[in-house]
């Protein structure tokens, strides 16, 4: 990445688009320090990340959803949701169970509580992953190409959950190629290329009247199909 400056307001939904290798995922992963950066600073909800004595405390407030779901394969869906609640947030088993059940209902798969990740479909796994991140009551949710590894028929169920989340006012930073979702849910689109932010603005501006040449080229390749 080369000189990126970004502000995200509380409750804002920001979708980052761009060609592969543009640094979108890297930027996202810097926010919760999964990637290290050489210079500059990141502040999340007033906490300066670089000087954060305990990165673990900060990460509790940041929820992350991965392209490859990364559910804990040796645990049931319910245990996946409860684990961090119990050992990080120190909630009681009953409290954690209740919160987990509510979240599973919210993402639409309450019947899967005792299944193992390998026994549910990709779309269901990703919804569990979203529930798992939400279980920690984060202040901001990061999505790293959440639907890129899904078969087409399962993309909608995940995007619907993300839409609901956006409508509820969750602060979201999403890296995605799903332009339909971006148009419908985003407050702001950010176009990145070669490690820099080329352009940003509301979806109806960026998608229909992009000001930069590179943006136009990228969008013409994506929006045609």
């Amino acid at each position, binding site marked *: 990445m080369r000189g990126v400056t970004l502000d995200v307001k509380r409750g804002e939904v920001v979708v980052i688009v761009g060609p592969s290798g543009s640094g979108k995922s890297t930027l996202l992963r810097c926010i919760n320090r999964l990637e290290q950066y050489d210079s500059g600073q990141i502040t999340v909800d007033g906490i300066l990340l670089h000087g954060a004595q305990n990165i*673990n405390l900060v990460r509790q407030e940041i929820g992350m959803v991965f392209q490859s779901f*990364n559910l804990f394969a040796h645990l049931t869906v319910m245990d996946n949701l409860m684990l961090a609640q119990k050992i990080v947030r120190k909630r009681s088993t009953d409290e954690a169970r209740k919160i987990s059940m509510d979240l599973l209902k919210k993402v639409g798969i309450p*019947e899967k509580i005792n*299944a193992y990740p390998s026994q549910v479909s990709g779309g269901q796994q990703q919804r569990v992953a979203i529930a798992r991140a939400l279980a920690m009551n984060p202040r901001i949710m990061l999505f790293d190409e959440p639907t890129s590894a899904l078969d087409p028929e399962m993309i909608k169920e995940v995007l619907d959950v993300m839409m609901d989340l956006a409508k509820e006012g969750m602060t979201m930073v999403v890296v995605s190629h799903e332009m339909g979702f971006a148009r419908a849910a985003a407050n702001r689109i950010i176009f990145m290329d070669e490690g820099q932010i080329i352009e940003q603005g509301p979806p109806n501006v960026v998608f229909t009247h992009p000001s930069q040449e590179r943006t136009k080229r990228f969008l013409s390749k994506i929006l045609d199909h």
Partner: protein
Amino acid sequence: MFSRRKSESPEFKVPELENVPEAGVGYHIDAWWWLVVLVAGLIAILSITKPDPYWRIVLFVRDGIGVTILITIVSFVLMIFVGMLGGLGRLSTNKLINLVTTLYVELVRGIPLLVQLIWWYFAFPVIVRELGQATHISFLANYEANAIFLAIFGFVFCYGAYMSEIFRAGIQSIPKGQMEAARSLGMSYFQAMRHVILPQAIRVILPPVGNEFIALLKDSSLVSAVALADLTRRGREFMAANFDPLQVWTMIALLYLVMTLFSARIVNYIERRTKIER
């Protein structure tokens, strides 16, 4: 022994396959257990039909069996801990820890186990005594080697290095995303290791660790070189008095065989029980 295929969870029924009989459901006897029975039976037949020398041999060496089993089990339990620490050390980003554990592994893997055991038993006490004399600490200067203690220590020290590599490879085989997800939820490195990585790594590690147990069981015979009265040593003592190489060593071999075959079945059983669907 009997085994039963774990049934699938209720919500995972596929309608088209409802009428197809599930393979392996119900009880079936694992064929390999018959080998254990066979060898044990052979020992029994030899002892009963020809008590002299076979039953005499068994009686003479039976305390050696106890020593063999004791050394193997104690060393095994301890070396698992060493392996876990060593494996984590080899993966550590701390340069000093990484250097120390890497040197340890390279050193140990470069010297034959027998030489190491002999070194601990004969050379190590000399160093301790000289150190004691130089520093005038009497309990060091008068140090006498305890055979069993040093033998166990020697096995743990040597096998611990191999176990470290097994643990390291097992931990590294877990996809990076698992650690990333755990850390993203706010878990510390050690919490992630304990609750997410190691439980999954255990299932990968179990087969090679099981093999190490059986290898250790056989390598325990090396303590016969450092004056420990294990099964092999007792066999040699009997031979020295009775000059019966064929009968003695055949019986000793059968005794080791029944132990290793039995252990292999246990290891296999544990592997099957902890198998995880991916």
